[in-house]
């Protein structure tokens, strides 16, 4: 449960919605219990009264029958409101969790997200957030309701027999909590093995599909088929064990429920014999128990969700506990007076890696100079961009703008010094306009079109049906890599900072377009300091000198 506390604490922000949802959940349950108990009492009392014609006439059947109808209508209304409010609360909670998680991740990103990038971990993180919706809807709410109902039955039954009341109370709690908890505990190690076995099967089939050529050329079909069959059999054997555990859990619940009925009845019959209990109330007790068990029915599922949700919570917390790789001063200590760039004895290696990426790298670019940075793959060119953007701190050495060390600049001031096109700029699943406005939120359409013109996209955008409102998603448009690259370039144009750094600006562009775009950029940025990181011969025509890394 410890891993869930931060999230339970978040629920406080939405306590009114949750209180409403829970209120209606209780109303519904109470009405259900009222309906069955009253009905049971009513027909028993009626049967007794009906024995003598006289009491049959004086028996007030109006009140109980009205009560039965009242409870049934309340139950319907309550159920509707409960479903509505609980879903509303759930979606509100998800919003809260997302904002909370985003605010935690934002300061430590992108360094902490880097290693999530290549794999599907980031994807899993998002689905982990989704699975937190179970926390209220399927875990807390049924558990609280079960406790509440058990207490209510304790109170309600003690008017008839405190012995029955305590017994039913204990049995309800045992069925609601102990039985699912125990089967959850028993299933835990099998569940763990099953997860391993499933992952093993998954990686095996991935390898097999990737190795299919070798399998066919080396004639390994039979061996691999046998291996897959064995792994599948192992998995099914574990799942069978899980089914047995689950089946036994269900059997335990049936047994506990039945025992509660029989023991309560056994005591109750004796009390009736001794004239300590009215016979009509015996029926009430039986139906009361029946309704209470209906109310705790979702508990076994709640425990199942509890396990999943805890795992999700643990993974989310692991991310948020990471420490920011870089600290920015609240406000800048001084402001740079010129746009020159000076890098001296820069060393860098990633944490937990012994590969030295940069070793004593030096580079000076005068204000207004246009320079290309060359070097083979993996020599640290893109890392250099990340260091200048202060996504990481160098292990040693310093970088200066004008004469100011960049660590003395606040985050906002540093961002305003640089206009950076990084290696993999992200295109958001949003309109073209919003994708551009990221670089300059207050830009007018005119400014946007000027930027698009610089990157040779005006004709293309004018031919789109929705123009700037075109959605840039994977499915919606067939934009090429070169077009997306130019949209990212347009952003660096809009951002309008004194120093421009472009990592592979013409990737995916054909020769003609890249020449045109670079020519326009060269004149547009004539007075800016520009550093182009490139692999391509053709880009070198637009710089005054080159630097090797």
């Amino acid at each position: 449960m410890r891993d869930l506390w931060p999230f339970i604490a978040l629920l406080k922000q939405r306590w009114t919605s949750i209180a409403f949802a829970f209120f209606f959940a209780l109303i519904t349950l109470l009405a259900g219990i009222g309906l069955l108990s009253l009905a049971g009492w009513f027909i028993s009392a009626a049967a007794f009264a009906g024995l003598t014609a006289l009491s049959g006439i004086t028996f007030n059947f109006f009140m109980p029958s009205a009560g039965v109808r009242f409870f049934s209508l309340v139950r319907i209304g309550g159920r509707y409101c409960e479903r509505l409010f609980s879903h509303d609360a759930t979606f509100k909670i998800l919003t809260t969790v997302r904002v909370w998680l985003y605010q935690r991740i934002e300061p430590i990103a992108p360094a902490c997200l880097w290693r999530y990038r290549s794999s599907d971990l980031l994807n899993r993180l998002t689905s982990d957030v989704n699975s937190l919706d179970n926390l209220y809807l399927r875990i807390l709410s049924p558990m609280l309701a079960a406790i509440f109902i058990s207490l209510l039955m304790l109170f309600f039954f003690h008017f008839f027999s405190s012995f029955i009341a305590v017994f039913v109370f204990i049995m309800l709690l045992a069925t609601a909590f102990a039985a699912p908890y125990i089967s959850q505990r028993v299933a835990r190690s099998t569940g763990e093995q099953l997860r391993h076995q499933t992952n093993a099967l998954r990686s095996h089939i991935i390898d097999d599909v990737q190795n299919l050529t070798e399998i066919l050329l080396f004639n390994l079909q039979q061996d691999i088929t046998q291996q897959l069959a064995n792994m599948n059999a192992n998995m099914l054997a574990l799942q069978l064990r899980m089914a047995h555990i689950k089946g036994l859990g269900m059997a335990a619940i049936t047994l506990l429920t039945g025992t509660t009925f029989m023991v309560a009845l056994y005591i109750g019959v004796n009390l009736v014999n001794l004239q300590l209990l009215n016979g009509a109330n015996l029926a009430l007790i039986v139906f009361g128990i029946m309704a209470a068990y209906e109310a705790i029915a979702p508990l076994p599922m709640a425990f199942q969700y509890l396990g999943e949700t805890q795992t999700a919570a643990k993974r989310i917390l692991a991310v948020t506990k990471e420490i920011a790789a870089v600290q920015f001063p609240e406000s800048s200590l001084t402001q740079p007076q010129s746009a020159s760039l000076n890098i001296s004895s820069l060393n860098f290696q990633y944490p937990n890696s012994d590969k030295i990426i940069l070793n004593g790298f030096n580079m000076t670019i005068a204000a207004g100079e246009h320079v290309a940075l060359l070097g083979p793959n993996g020599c640290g060119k893109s890392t250099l961009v990340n260091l200048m953007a202060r996504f990481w701190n160098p292990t040693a050495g310093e970088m200066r703008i004008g004469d100011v060390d960049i660590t003395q600049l606040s985050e906002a001031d540093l961002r305003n010094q640089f206009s950076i096109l990084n290696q993999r700029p992200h295109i958001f699943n949003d309109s073209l306009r919003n994708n551009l406005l990221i670089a300059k939120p207050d830009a007018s359409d005119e400014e946007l079109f000027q930027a698009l013109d610089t990157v040779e996209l005006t004709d293309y955008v004018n031919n789109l049906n929705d123009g700037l409102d075109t959605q840039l998603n994977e499915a919606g448009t067939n934009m090429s890599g070169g077009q997306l690259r130019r949209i990212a370039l347009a952003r660096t144009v809009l951002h309008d900072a004194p120093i421009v750094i472009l990592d592979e600006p013409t990737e995916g562009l054909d020769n003609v377009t890249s020449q045109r775009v670079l020519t326009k950029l060269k004149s547009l940025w004539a007075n800016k300091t520009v550093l182009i990181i490139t692999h391509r011969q053709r880009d070198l025509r637009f710089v005054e000198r080159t630097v090797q890394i």
Partner: protein
Amino acid sequence: MLATGSGIASGFLLVLQASLLSRIVYEAFMNHQQRDQLLHLFIMAVIVILIRAGLSWSKEVCGFKAGSAVRKQLRQTVWQHLLKLGPAATQHMGSGAVASQYVEQIEAVQDFYAYYLPQMSLVVFIPLAIVAFVFPISWMAGIIFICTAPLIPLFMALIGMETAKLNQKHFQTLARMSAKFLDVLQGISTLKLFNRSRAQAKVVEDTSEQYRFNIMKVLRVAFMTSGVLELFSAVSIALTAVYLGLSLLGEVHIGHYGAALTLQGALFILLLAPEFYLPLRELGTHYHARGQALGAAEELQKILQLQPTTHHQAVQSPFTQTHQVTINCKQLNFSFEQQRVLNNLDFSITPGQHVAIVGTSGAGKTTLLNCLLGFLQSNPQQLYINGIDITDIHLTEWQQHIAWLGQNPKLFPGTIKENLLLANANASNEQLHQALASAHAEFVEQLPEGINTPVGERNLGLSGGQIQRICLARLYLRDANFIILDEPTASIDAESENLLLQSITEHFTDTTLVMSTHRINQLEKMDTIIVLDNGEIKEMGNLAQLMEQQGLFYQMSQEEIIHA
């Protein structure tokens, strides 16, 4: 079937249990029976409960077994089909997608067989059984139940449609919300560069709330449907209770065949009233299993409906001429999904010749290699191996003469030695070490366990370049007459690329070799370079000739990466 049987038996016992409970209350209350006189009823009830507990266990296990048998069969079918389809098709699908179909989608079928199908029978059977027991006691109560009974199929359809629609809406909204969130997380470094990352928290909140607003509009209406179902069950219980009460009071005299209704009968009916609707409600919770299984079936169809492209002719000439391999392509065409991928390719490869196939991705390089390997079937009279039409050749025999190296090879679980022996089971240790040395894989000798080092799943501990070298050593061990290399250096650095290409050309001086690549430096050693573009041969010749022509190849070389 067994699961359904357990469910039905359990239903009967439930009726019996209700009848015992009502009898006990009746005897104690109305007939003032002592507890000891009722002991046999208590004992019977306990036995019924024990059997019901056993049945709920067996229902679970039997349901599981039904589902697991189906899954086992499905996995086998899918894998056998993948083997028939061959790598040409699976490369197209992607290993991740195939794995998700083989593992997750087939898992998704389980609940349909384990829960949904048995529940479908129970939904019909249990209410009918209850009505059958209620009728002899009071036809009026039976009528109240029966009035709602014809509505059961209607309810089933309603619940089905509603749950499906609801799940879909809910799922879509959730998916869109999380896609948006994922998008922001993925773009966080871009946002940072433009100093927009902090402001984005507001965007996250607004979109999330917008989705909530939209889905709640849908839900408000959707919950009405299930409200109606609740209404029926609650009103029917209330109506039954009021009717029973009034009958017992003597206010109402119809519905129980003239004889007085006893408390026992009344309690029995009232106990069964909620059970009448229970299977229906449970069906709602299992309904998503149906949607899941349908979705999975659709996904699996994507694999199973693909037809293998390779031929399995009855008569195939054995392929025995081995020492030298000659390839002749005569107007080779290949189409995939009505699109021409290879267009009238005309070329020959003489014995011992080394040929590079160059082109951007999508130019048709891999398709051509797959035709040569026999993984894709070419048209008759277009591709000849040693003068024999490839469509007449026994493919497995032809493939025994080929050695192949891909761009991202993986090792099989086992030791390095076992992996090497796959190529040649009879190789001596000396041969293994020699092959490793020629493939520049000396690092293997420095490992603590040498060639007996186990390489586990996911090739733990070895870099991509190291694995590539071990696979190259394996290539050398295979006594092949035709070498196919599919972008062998695409995923390694320039230095290793040089080493490997040099080692390959030296080792296979007299063997016919075809290599596809999209890197075009370092092709001096190749005898012929074929430049493919959009499935057509644009240029052909050696490096010097192609550079002189100043055509497509020259242009590509200008865009090529600068090797400092």
